Each structure stands twice: as C-alpha cells, then as structure tokens.
C-alpha cells in the first residue's frame, strides 16, 4: 500500500532523512519509533505530500506523491504532530469544512461526521468552539479530521500525546478498531503504546532505519538467553552457592532486600533452556521458599535504547 524507496530529505546541509526504504502492506499497522529529531515527522510530512523529498520516491496505492499528489492525498488521512485546528470554529463547523476540502459529497457529510464523532467521543462536544476544548479533546478533533473522507491510509503523528491515561486507552482502542480496514502508520516515542497496537515496528534514528520487525521478534531477537528475577527467603550467600551448582547458569546476584529474611536476585542462563524447575527443587530441598520467580523479558524500551545507542557507537 505504501512504498517508500531511498527517501532522503535535506534541510540545507542537515540530512533529516537519509536514504530510508520500507513498505507497509494493506491493512497493516506500523509503529514508527525514534527519539526526538530522528526524522519521524519529516518522513510523515513527505508521505502526506506536505513536504517534497530531496530524493527517493513515495508511492501510495501505486500513485507517486510527486506526480499524482491529488490521488495520494485523497487516500491519506493525516494527523500532524500539532492538530491543524481553526480555533474560532465549532467542532461541527470545522469537520464540515474538512469534509468540503476532501470533496466528500454533501449528502454523505452529515452521516459520516456523526459516525466519526461517535467513534472518537466528540458527539457531546460538537457544538463547542475548538478554542474552548481541552487539549485531549482537541487531539480528538484532530483525529476526527484525519478520518474525514474515509481514507484508506491513516498517518498519525504521536496521536496520544497530551491525553490523560484513560483517554490514551480509549484512543488506542479507536486506532485498533480503525486498523481493521485501514493501513496505519503511527509514530510515537511511547514504547508500550507501539507494542500494544502495532504489528510491526520501524525504529528510526538520526534519519536512518535502525531496526524493523514485529515487537515480539524485536524483543526476542536481541538476547535469547533466559533471564529470571527471583525473590527467595533464606540466607543470601548459601542460596547463591546452591543455585550456581545447577548447570547452565551464567551468573546470579542479589539485587536487593525484599523483606526481613528474603532477597531479590537476578539470574541469567547460558542458553534458552528453561531451568526454572531445577531452581525450584534445589531451593525446596534446602527449605528456602521461592516467593517469586518470573522471566524478565526485554521491553521495547531496552531494545530501543540498545538500538539507538548501538547506532551512536557505530558513528
């Protein structure tokens, strides 16, 4: 659905986006991740036709943005970083204006606007001036604006920024619901968000793609060895000694006190082999109760930081 090839954008001497290529398939929802100034918004601005690229091509549904801008723009709903709102209009007036801009036929406008406002939770606020709405509601109006004209592709630049936790969950639900029939690119620097909604993650740093995969594979691929965090009641040194007798342990150390007589430990195995049962029985033999034992999975946060810092080392 979206093909990006060798895309480069320079602002004078500064290279904001450096020769990136990736595809987004129809119906897919892709997370675009990166630190501030990585080139996320620039890339999105180019895909939506707001900025021209210095080199490379962007095609949406087979249409090149440079040669067929109207065809591409018709298919894209865009929520920029700062929602493009006219504050002196009411929500309804604004959405009506956007409908006309997107050439939505007059007879469909009312129904479509009502559906969209219902979806993003604006129905009760439809007669209010945008200027008087809170930041969270303005963000919703921005999202509603992107949905006008029923575009096949949605480009959302940090859609949940500035929302309260309850609204974030709600907007994520909305995005998830929308992804049923649409292709979505969503940028964020909130990692759990991306892992919660996206099927695929593209990590971009300093204008280049640093990693690209599913959130699960990204977390696995980084380090396969088993990692556990444990809480065991009993004498610290003896416990560590006993555990280290088990095969396949790379290291184990106490990471803190967890009660009067209990300590927290972190443990790393040499391989993927699951040694949890062995640890349990070893502890049970000695009469040291295992209070807690859980695999510590690498979060996207860890991956993100390691990918981003790796990039810096290379440079």
């Amino acid at each position: 659905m979206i093909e990006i090839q060798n895309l480069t954008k320079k602002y004078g001497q500064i290279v904001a986006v450096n020769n990136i290529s990736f595809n987004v398939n129809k119906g897919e929802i892709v997370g675009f991740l990166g630190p501030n100034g990585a080139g996320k918004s620039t890339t999105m601005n180019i895909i939506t036709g707001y900025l021209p690229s210095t080199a490379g091509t962007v095609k949406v549904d087979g249409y090149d943005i440079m040669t067929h801008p109207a065809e591409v723009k018709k298919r894209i709903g865009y929520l920029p970083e700062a929602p493009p709102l006219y504050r002196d209009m009411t929500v309804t007036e604004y959405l009506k204006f956007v409908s006309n801009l997107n050439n939505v036929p007059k007879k469909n406008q009312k129904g479509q606007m009502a559906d969209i406002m219902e979806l993003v939770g604006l129905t009760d606020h439809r007669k209010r001036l945008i200027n008087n709405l809170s930041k969270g509601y303005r963000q919703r109006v921005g999202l509603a604006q992107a949905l006008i004209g029923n575009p096949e592709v949605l480009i959302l630049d940090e859609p949940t920024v500035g929302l309260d936790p309850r609204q974030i969950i709600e907007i994520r639900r909305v995005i998830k619901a929308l992804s049923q029939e649409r292709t979505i690119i969503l940028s964020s620097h909130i990692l759990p968000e991306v892992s919660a909604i996206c099927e695929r993650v593209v990590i971009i740093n300093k204008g280049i793609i640093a990693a690209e995969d599913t959130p699960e594979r990204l977390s696995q691929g980084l380090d396969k060895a088993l990692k556990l965090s444990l809480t065991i009641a009993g004498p610290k040194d003896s416990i560590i000694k006993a555990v280290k007798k088990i095969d396949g342990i790379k290291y184990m150390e106490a990471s803190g006190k967890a009660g009067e007589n209990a300590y927290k430990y972190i443990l790393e195995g040499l391989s993927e082999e699951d040694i949890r049962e062995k640890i349990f029985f070893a502890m049970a033999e000695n009469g040291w109760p295992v209070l807690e034992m859980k695999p510590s999975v690498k979060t996207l946060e860890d991956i993100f930081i390691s990918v981003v810092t790796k990039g810096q080392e290379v440079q």
Partner: protein
Amino acid sequence: MFTVAKKEISTYFKSPIAYILIGLFMLMISIMFYTPFSIGSGDFMPVLQNMGFFLIFLVPIMTMRILAEDRKNGTEVLLLTSPTSLTQIILGKFLAMYFVFLVITILSMIYPIINFAYGGVFTVQLVGGYIGFLLLGASFVAIGVFASAVTENQIVAAIISFVTLLIMWMADAFSTQVGGIIGTIMGWISLLSRYDIFTKGILGLPEIAYFILFTGLFIFLTIRVIERRRWIQG
C-alpha cells in the same frame, strides 16, 4: 476553491476585524464626503479618489492574516495535504478577501445615493470611477495576499503590503521626477495614473487589462512563493 473562500469569509465576519475596518473606512469616507457636501458640491469623484488612497491602509490590515495565520497555527498542513490544490486554495483566499472588499465598496455607495437624493447628478464618471475602484481593489488585495504568504508574522505582512502599495501609489510622481530607466519602471507599476483615467469616466481597455494582469501576476507569485518555500524549508 469556494470551500476555502466561504470559510475565510465567515471567519472574517465572526471576528471584530471586519467590522472595525469597515467602520473606520466609512468614517473616513464620511469626513471626506461631508465637507464638499455641506457647501452644496455634488461631486463625488474627489471622494472616490481618496477612497483609493485609504485602501493603502485598509487592505494590508485586512489581508495580513489570510495566509500568515495558517502558517503560524499549523493549519497550513491541513490545507496542503488535502486533495484541494494549492491554486484552488489561494484563489479561494483571494476571493474571500475580495468579497470583504466588495462589501466595503457597496456600503460606500450610500454616499452617491445621498448625493442623488439632494439633487446630485448621475454621471458616467461615477460608473467609470467605481469600475476603476473595483479593479484597483483587486490588485491591492492580490498584493496583500502575496505579502501574507511571504512571512508567518502578520505585522510584517501588513508592513510589507503597506510599503509596497505606498510605493506603487507614489510611483507616478516619482516617474516624472526621476526620469530615465527608473522613471520608466515606476511608470509601469503606477497604479494611480491608471486609476485616475477611470475617475475621469474613461473605460480604457489597456487599463482594465493592466489591472487584471496585475492581479493575476500577484496571485501567481503567491502560489510560487508557497511552492518554493515547501522545497527549501521544513
């Protein structure tokens, strides 16, 4: 095109700026009109000429926000990423501004009507003068829209269009004084000398063409400026 125009017009008449401008303009005309009227002169032409001069102050304030505000508030993204083309957007904005100007023009017609009521004579000059005024307004508005596209600061936009209009207004006087190449160039851009022809009641085809081309040129330049800026900045 009409979507944008309609939206801009409603924005203008929802904000106080349109009313303040119209009120000020009417006040100025009233003062200009009253002096000759009170001594029984029914000649409206000097007033019409002065109205042209007031436009130099009115139009920059009227047009300063039309594009600069979109750029500042980020609503430019909405317009530029919609399937509506840049040309349509700019034409819509221009039409909206011209509509506000038309409202002012129509309101100003009260004064000739008062004249008639007190025995004034309907003259060809008056018709010619108003046609000239409409054409003059179009080119002024086009310059104002252009200035608003150059910067995201509304005040700067107003100053640019004010200075530009002032130079063009004075160009006639300059061209005769300076002479030479500069004088010739000043003659080309002199809107006043062409407007004067209309107020004499002459409908000159070259003058009509001049104003229309002038307006078209500045609308074209506006589109080019925005297009160019997209290429060079972020």
